[in-house]
């Protein structure tokens, strides 16, 4: 197991380094230099280059860049708010994004699992049909369809929730974004839970448990659910990533001051440094999540661990 974890961690670190290299190259190829003030003379530019280490060989520059990133120093913003440290920009925005994202994951997983269980236990009834409809809609429609529909009917027409994000009533204004973001998770988790649970209910060990006289709640909770819910961990990680991506659009629609909307603004105002930093944060979150899921899965299910060693 230790060998497996070590191997997975090594691969993850290599991947992060490759991503950093890609981003670094991208920064090099972007038009313009940090010192494109026409008033600067040739000599002054040279002094500046020397000061920031830009006259050194590109390999050394890359090593310095990695060192800075590890320290949490991503450089400064070019155009959104000039010469502000990006880490300072992120400080206030990350918590907002994390809170809404976290709410959406928890809400999506809980509702999805409950819907899936209900559909599997009452398969063939109207509950099952509702589950099917929700999962088809949730999987095939982009999250902003739900966001816009809710914003129009619940926010604008009925006036139940604030149409735009308002930090004074942070919870009420996070309800609609959370639901919109969670729709895809609800759909995927519900579909997955239903399939897994139906398969488990059909298995021999369930028949054995039943023939031993276990019935009702104990049978479902202790024997069926435990085995059915393990694979759901695997779908949760990609879901979190979809959620991060969805947050770009959702945060824009509801004007939420998170990193998603910051990235959209950065893209639109050509602030490469900010864009690349946020892309890097998303990638790292994704890689860490995948790593966590792989390790968790190995701990829970010994078959995976043995197969991969």
């Amino acid at each position, binding site marked *: 197991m230790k060998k497996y974890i070590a191997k997975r961690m090594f691969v993850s670190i290599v*991947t992060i380094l490759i991503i950093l290299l890609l981003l670094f190259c991208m920064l090099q*190829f972007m038009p313009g230099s940090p010192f494109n003030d026409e008033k600067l003379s040739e000599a002054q530019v040279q002094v500046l280059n020397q000061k920031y280490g830009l006259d050194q060989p590109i390999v050394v520059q890359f090593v310095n860049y990695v060192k800075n990133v590890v320290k949490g120093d991503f450089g400064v913003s070019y155009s959104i708010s000039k010469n502000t440290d990006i880490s300072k920009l992120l400080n206030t925005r990350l918590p907002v994004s994390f809170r809404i994202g976290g709410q959406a994951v928890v809400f999506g997983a809980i509702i999805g699992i409950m819907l899936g269980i209900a559909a599997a236990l009452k398969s063939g009834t109207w509950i099952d049909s509702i589950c099917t409809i929700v999962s088809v809609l949730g999987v095939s429609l*982009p999250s902003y369809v739900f966001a*816009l529909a809710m914003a*129009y009917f619940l926010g*604008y027409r009925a006036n139940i929730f604030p149409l735009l994000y308002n930090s004074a009533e942070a919870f009420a204004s996070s309800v609609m974004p959370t639901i919109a973001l969670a729709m895809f998770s609800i759909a995927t988790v519900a*579909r997955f839970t239903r399939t897994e649970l139906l398969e488990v209910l059909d298995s021999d060990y369930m028949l054995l448990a039943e023939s031993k006289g276990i019935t009702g709640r104990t049978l479902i909770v202790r024997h069926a659910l435990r085995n059915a819910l393990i694979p759901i961990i695997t779908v949760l990680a990609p879901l979190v990533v979809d959620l991060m991506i969805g947050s770009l659009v959702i945060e824009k629609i509801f004007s939420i001051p998170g990193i998603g909307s910051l990235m959209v603004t950065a893209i639109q105002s050509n602030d490469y440094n900010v864009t690349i930093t946020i892309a890097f944060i998303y*990638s790292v979150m*994704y890689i860490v999540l995948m790593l966590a899921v792989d390790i968790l899965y190995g701990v829970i299910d010994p078959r995976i661990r043995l197969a991969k060693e």
Partner: protein
Amino acid sequence: MLRKKKVQMTETASAPVPVTDVEEYLKGIRFQEDDFEFQHMDEDLIDTNFASQSFWKDAYMRFKKNKGAVISFFCILLIILLAIVGPNMTPYTYATQDIKNQNLAPRVPGLEKLGILDGSETVKASGVAKKINKYISNKKTDVYYWFGSDSLGRDIWTRTWTGTRISLYIAVVAVLVDMLFGLSYGLISGYFGGKVDMVMQRIVEIVNSIPTLVVVTLMMLVLSPGLTSITVALIVTGWIGMSRIARAEMLKLKEREFVLASRTLGAGSFRIIFSEIFPNIFGPVITQTMFSIPHAIFTEAFLAFIGLGVPSPLASLGTMISDGYKNFTTHPYQIVFPLVVMSLLMLSFTLLADGLREALDPKMKEM
């Protein structure tokens, strides 16, 4: 087929005696010629349930049973048809601007007399909802915008169907990327195995561990926004799902006897991969292709939403939605039509893909 009609009992004994010997018992029964008659002589009996049918006929039967998939198929056909003829049905082009006719509500000849889509809209001014008809107040009674007009006075009907063309183009690109890149990559990686597979799979692992939309976004920054860049972005990210399916199928099949037979007969790798194994994995390949279409359409819409869509005045469904959302509370019709067409398109492709999967691969577990 013989069936017993009636048996004439010629037994004379009045009281039934316990039967001890069958031969003895049957002796007392005499069958006559008309005791039996032929049944089903004039009918052809064919086992309709288990008759052997070709794979494609079988798949077609299964597909036909799936109502959602059939409806989706016709829905896609209808959308394609409208995308072809729609923009030519109005006097406007997608770029025709008429600033005097901005923000007009939908108005359709014929339907307007019924009181729906007659060009009136409800406007909320200082908290009071009021119904107005700008066609009448602006004295434009001979002007019709079937889906309304946008903030620059462009016809939304024309723009919606022009935009649908772009979504359909994206769909074709997604299919081609899957077929040309993903399929070959997966087949080659799976077929050769060993070191080739190791290297190729590490590449997939690394590309896959960067979120797709981050890659796409960064690429769009380097290239300038436009249809070419969107195509390139789809090529770079679209092949991974298919390569996985193709590789898994290849690993399943390459040790089978028919491959060995073909190799013994002297077939080269290329022939084995593409004319022996490929026809056998056609089902999963088609299914995966269909699933990648809605994903590609979504990617385009997403890029449009964050400002990396096709440049104006060209319209795609994504750019129309991202333009329309800015004033969707005051003029909801500007966003509803492109949104509905795109939702229908994505929903239909997903349902169609689901139906095809069940039809082509009944063994696969239902997801």
